[in-house]
C-alpha cells in the first residue's frame, strides 16, 4: 500500500534531476542521456496513473513513448556521430555554427 503520490513524487525528482543535468552538462552525449532520463520519469507517471484508474491506455502510451525513444536515440546518435566527424568535438559550447 503505497500512495500513488509517492510514485509521482519520485517521477518529479527524476524529472528535475534530468532538467538539471540537461542544463549543466556540456557533453552532447550526456545531454542526450539526460533527455532519456526525463522520458523515463514521465513514463513512470503514466504507469502510476494507469494503475490508479485501472485503465490500460496509460501503459499503451508508455509503449509508444518507448518506440519513439528508440527511433529518436538511433537518429540522435547518428547526428552526434556526424557532428563529431565534422567538428572533432562533443562540447556543446564549441558547436556554434548557427551562432556565428
Amino acid at each position: 500500500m503505497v500512495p500513488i503520490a509517492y510514485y509521482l513524487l519520485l517521477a518529479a525528482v527524476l524529472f528535475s534531476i534530468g532538467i538539471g543535468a540537461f542544463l549543466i552538462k556540456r557533453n552532447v552525449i550526456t545531454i542526450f542521456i539526460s533527455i532519456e532520463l526525463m522520458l523515463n520519469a514521465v513514463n513512470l507517471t503514466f504507469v502510476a496513473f494507469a494503475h490508479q484508474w485501472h485503465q490500460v491506455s496509460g501503459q499503451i502510451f508508455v509503449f509508444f513513448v518507448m518506440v519513439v525513444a528508440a527511433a529518436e536515440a538511433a537518429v540522435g546518435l547518428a547526428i552526434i556521430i556526424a557532428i563529431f566527424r565534422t567538428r572533432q568535438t562533443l562540447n556543446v559550447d564549441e558547436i556554434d555554427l548557427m551562432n556565428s
Partner: protein
Amino acid sequence: MQLALFLIFGALAVAGALNLLFQRHPINSALSLVVVMMSLAVLYWSLGAEFLAAAQVIVYSGAIMVLFVFVIMLLNAGEEVRTKGSRAAYNVGIPGAAAIFCVLAFVFLSERNQLGTANMGGRLSNGVDNIAELSQVLFTKLLLPFEVTSVLILVAILGAVVLARKEQ
C-alpha cells in the same frame, strides 16, 4: 512488501540519477542511467505493468543504452570540461529545476488524498490480465498507430544510416 520495494528501488533510481548528474565521464553517466532504468522496471512491475517492465529492460536498458555505450566508445569521448557556458547554466539550471520540482511536489502532495494508493498486483477494473488487455487494445483499436510506429522505426533506421554515412 510494496512499500519496501518502492523505498529500495526508488532510492536506487534517485541515487543513479544523481550519479548521472555528478559524474564527469559520459560512460559513467550512461551506466548510471542503466541503474535508473532497471529500478524503474521493478517499479513498473510493482504497479502491475509486467509487459512494460519487460519492455523497459529489453528495449531501454538492452537496446538503447547499448547504442549509447557503443557511440561513447566509438567516439572515444573523454571527460567533459567546465566552460563559461556551464557556469551560466549552473546559475539558471539548479534554481529552475528546483522550482519545477517544488511546483510538482506541491501539486502531488496537496492532491494525495484524491490520488489513492497502489496495491501490489493490481488488476484492471474488468478483472482481466494486464498483458491480455494490453494486446487486445493494441491489436484491435490501435492497430493503425501500431503499424505506423513500424514505419517510423524504418524511417529512423534509414535516417541513421544516411546521417552516419561517410560523405563521399
